[in-house]
């Protein structure tokens, strides 16, 4: 506290104490943070790194961020902005099998919230699917305790893109489409998260990416956004047989316009396994379109 006051004698400090009990410690600790600094400020990262070192905590994952703090009075730890029904989480659990014989399944690790069209009284039908996929991804980072930055609204996403210079100010309040590149910029700016982008020249080549996607789910475990052929999807898993080449993609579809009802979502195929080529020969990924896959990386940071 003295250090904060000494460094910025004329700036009011916003000190707040948080309690933590990481698994490797036998007792809780209390840390006092100056909330004037955002979580990704280099100064706070260094302070946390020193604390990790003093407490003999691993240095490659967040354990002492505000998001990791013990919560005592909160009933709902997931801060959802929905005024009505609570958002559904992990809707893929319990869904029917992929149908790939002898396949190797790799799935998203941890929890996420299902964001889709028309939630929060916002009519984004026809333009907001990439925004919704981004919200699902950010909810994953929140639920895995990497951040407590609130899931941004469509407007806040647009404001972020304008603030970094990627879009003109007229973009705010518009219904303009965005894609994987914009998602990577917002994740970098708001959460400090790096993303890898896989460019796939043709939808017919998507099955060739299964090995890389399986590696992503195994090592990173974060949801993937697929952008291409005018549609955005969130990818939650891969099942593929490397010998037969059969592949299936666990897709969470942000274009759903119904209510928060798991039965309806499952019955309508809004979350489920999609074969690259269906039994009727229909392609899920179009061969004459390119696709960009956004693979958010877990920050190796404290």
């Amino acid at each position, binding site marked *: 506290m003295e250090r904060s006051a000494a460094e910025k004698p004329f700036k009011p400090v916003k000190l707040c104490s948080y309690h933590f009990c990481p698994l490797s410690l036998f007792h809780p600790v209390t840390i006092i943070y100056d909330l004037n600094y955002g979580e990704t400020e280099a100064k706070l990262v260094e302070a946390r790194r020193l604390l990790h070192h003093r407490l003999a905590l691993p240095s490659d994952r967040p354990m002492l961020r505000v998001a990791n703090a013990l919560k005592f009075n909160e009933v709902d730890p997931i801060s959802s902005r929905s005024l009505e029904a609570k958002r559904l989480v992990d809707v893929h659990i319990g869904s029917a099998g992929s149908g790939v014989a002898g396949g190797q399944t790799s799935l998203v690790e941890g929890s996420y919230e299902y964001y889709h069209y028309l939630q929060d009284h916002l009519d984004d*039908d026809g333009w907001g699917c990439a925004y919704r996929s981004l919200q699902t991804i950010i909810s994953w980072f929140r639920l895995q305790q990497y951040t407590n930055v609130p899931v941004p609204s469509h407007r806040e996403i647009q404001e972020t893109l304008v603030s970094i210079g990627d879009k003109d100010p007229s973009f705010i309040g518009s219904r303009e*489409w965005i894609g994987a590149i914009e998602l990577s910029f917002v994740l970098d700016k708001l959460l400090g998260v790096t993303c890898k*982008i896989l*460019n796939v020249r043709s939808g017919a080549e998507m099955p060739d990416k299964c090995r890389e996607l399986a590696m992503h789910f195994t090592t990173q475990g974060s949801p993937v956004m697929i952008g291409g052929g005018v549609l955005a999807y969130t990818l939650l898993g891969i099942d593929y047989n490397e010998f037969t080449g059969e592949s299936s993609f666990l897709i969470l579809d942000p274009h759903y316009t119904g209510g928060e009802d798991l039965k309806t979502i499952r019955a309508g195929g809004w979350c489920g396994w999609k074969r690259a080529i269906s039994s009727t020969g229909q392609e899920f990924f179009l061969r004459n379109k390119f696709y960009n896959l956004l693979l958010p990386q877990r920050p190796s940071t404290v």
Partner: protein
Amino acid sequence: MSGGKVSFKVTLTSDPKLPYKVFSVPEEAPFTAVLKFAAEEFKVPPQTSAIITNDGVGINPQQSAGNVFLKHGSDLRLIPRDRVGSSSS
């Protein structure tokens, strides 16, 4: 330090032959200029193109070329931007 130049090798990944071009720009030049030159050389629209590193990390072009060179090196790729939004029927 000013007056120095940095070079980038930009590969067009949408072409299976993987053509590339090498650009040399002043360090202080905005990276948007590299994106624009690369897109024009490859005859693709700059507004719907993006540059990523060889590892696939996206690069925000609103920074200096020198900054990009230091952070990401010189081996880059030009990819088309997807813009998605239509509701599926």
